[in-house]
């Protein structure tokens, strides 16, 4: 029984990790909390829904939705953030929160209009509904897909950041935009790329999460945004492996709280936990100060 609960928790945590990875990537490179991430996530899910209902297979729809997420996220970078980089960092930090929040409001309300404020669902059988029994635990094909995707995304990000020339540029811009510019790196291109990748990840997350819970609505991103805050703080702001570990820890903790505590209590505990972590160890549970500065933190 408890083993099944822990497995469910790991899967819930992986779902949070799916969402939080793209969010963390942007934060680690830009030092910007992209509050529109939830909006991008919703756009992709909605886009996949429209494609599936017009007869496209879910696999094609998922790829298209991921690309759509990337494009929307890139647009947000160009419209809402590019012009802010002329401000000094502490002004930019505030300004970026406001503009991405503005972008999020706009996106969510367009989604709201498109769906007529309704919750829409994928038609039954969009994704093969198969269950496996693994050592007496029950796990669905979709859940395995979620776990595999999180693993693949994590590997891809680590490879991309630390083993490719593009990743090197990205880390250079993250540690000092000025120095990178002098070395012939175009920061605007790097930022756009980061946002595109982050958007693609939000897109994949959007489709998988929409399939997992089979519900898509304009406001579907909001609860995940709040959880993503908890996760990136727990994992160490800007640390990518820390983010995945924190997400899984959070998922397990939440599932166990929901099972063993009265309803309503888990939220109090989890947000108080966030509060405490920020007070006691703002660099997060996994991320030492040094680990953050590798991925880039302008102190």
């Amino acid at each position, binding site marked *: 029984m408890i083993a099944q609960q822990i497995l469910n928790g790991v899967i819930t945590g992986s779902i949070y990790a799916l969402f939080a990875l793209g969010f963390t990537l942007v934060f680690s490179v830009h030092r910007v909390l992209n509050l529109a991430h939830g909006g991008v996530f919703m756009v992709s899910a909605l886009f996949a829904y429209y494609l599936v209902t017009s007869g496209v297979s879910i696999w094609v729809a998922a790829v298209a939705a991921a690309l759509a997420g990337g494009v929307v996220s890139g647009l947000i970078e160009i419209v809402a953030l590019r012009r802010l980089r002329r401000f000094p960092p502490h002004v930019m*930090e505030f300004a970026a*929160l*406001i503009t991405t929040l*503005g972008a*999020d*409001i706009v996106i969510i309300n367009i989604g709201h209009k498109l769906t007529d404020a309704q919750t829409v669902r994928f038609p039954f059988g969009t994704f093969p509904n198969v269950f496996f029994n693994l050592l007496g635990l029950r796990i669905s094909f979709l859940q395995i897909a979620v776990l595999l995707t999180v693993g693949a995304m994590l590997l891809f990000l680590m490879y991309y950041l630390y083993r490719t020339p593009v990743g090197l540029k990205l880390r250079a811009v993250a540690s000092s935009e000025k120095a990178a510019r002098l070395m012939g790196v175009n920061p605007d291109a790097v930022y756009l790329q980061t946002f595109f990748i982050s958007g693609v990840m939000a897109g994949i997350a959007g489709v998988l999460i929409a399939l997992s819970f089979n519900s898509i609505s304009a406001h579907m991103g909001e609860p995940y945004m*709040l959880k993503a805050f908890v996760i990136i703080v727990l994992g160490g702001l800007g640390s990518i492996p820390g983010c995945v570990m924190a997400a899984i820890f959070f998922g397990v903790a939440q599932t166990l709280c929901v099972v063993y505590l009265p309803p309503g209590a888990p939220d*109090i505990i989890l947000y108080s936990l966030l509060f405490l972590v*920020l007070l006691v160890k*703002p660099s997060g549970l996994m991320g030492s100060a040094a680990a953050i500065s590798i991925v880039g933190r302008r102190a």
Partner: protein
Amino acid sequence: MNYFSQYLPLADIFLLALGFAFSQQVVLRAGVFSVATAGFASLGAYCSAILVTTYGWPAPAAIAASLLFGTAAGWCLSLPLARLRGIYQAIATLAFVQVVIAVMLFATSITGGGLGINSIPKSVGTGTLLAAAIITGYVMFAMQRSGIGRAFDAIQQEETVAAVLGVSIRRYHALAFTISGAIAGLFGGLQSLNTYTLTPSSFSFTFVIMVLGYIVVGGRRSAWGPVVGVAFLTLLPELSRGLAEYRPIVTGIVMIAVMIFLPLGLADTFILSLKRRKRQGNLVEGGTHVRSAS
């Protein structure tokens, strides 16, 4: 007379929003990135509503209690949070707001849970709200002109310099939190006695966004900032009914545009340009003007 009375509810909304905007402005002005206003307002609102409905307190006493409760909450929150900076502060205060909402939902026997508290007797009219808003506005204005205002400005612009000049950052951040809590508590109490009902979702993330929007659009420095911001974001969509449907989208676009093109906000940019014009005028008339950099 009829013409005015149909706009009275709108005036109430405007004045309440103005109060919350002042509360948000105080912290931003001191360089504290707190979004805790929603939490303080929620505490204040529940405090008044419970005292009036369950314990039968008279309205003025309940509102005074809200004010005190908000002040105390602000001061308590400032103790741990003065250690954090920037985004960390924003996330921590957002966590505080979430904890407040979760507690209000959880403590069903006291707060009514998700259904909230209904049929609160309406004992606060537009006049009271107007008085409260004017007094708060005056306090803000006076504070801006005093040493506290100058210290806030110094901290907001460059903390290191402020510290070197002998401004105690910890003390002024604590002060900003406390004042913000007091104002939000007061207006939270007023709102619950003005609008009949109160639910935990009245002061949720949406509220946080709205209040931030007022200050961003209006401006962070002058006491006129919140007035302009609230007027722009609440009155315009209400008066032009065609836009009302697209109100959130317009709010979002305005937030982006103002931040990019007028990062100081409408009121502050206007005041700054007035000052510049005046200074240039003096230069032309008075010839040499040594103390032009103020």
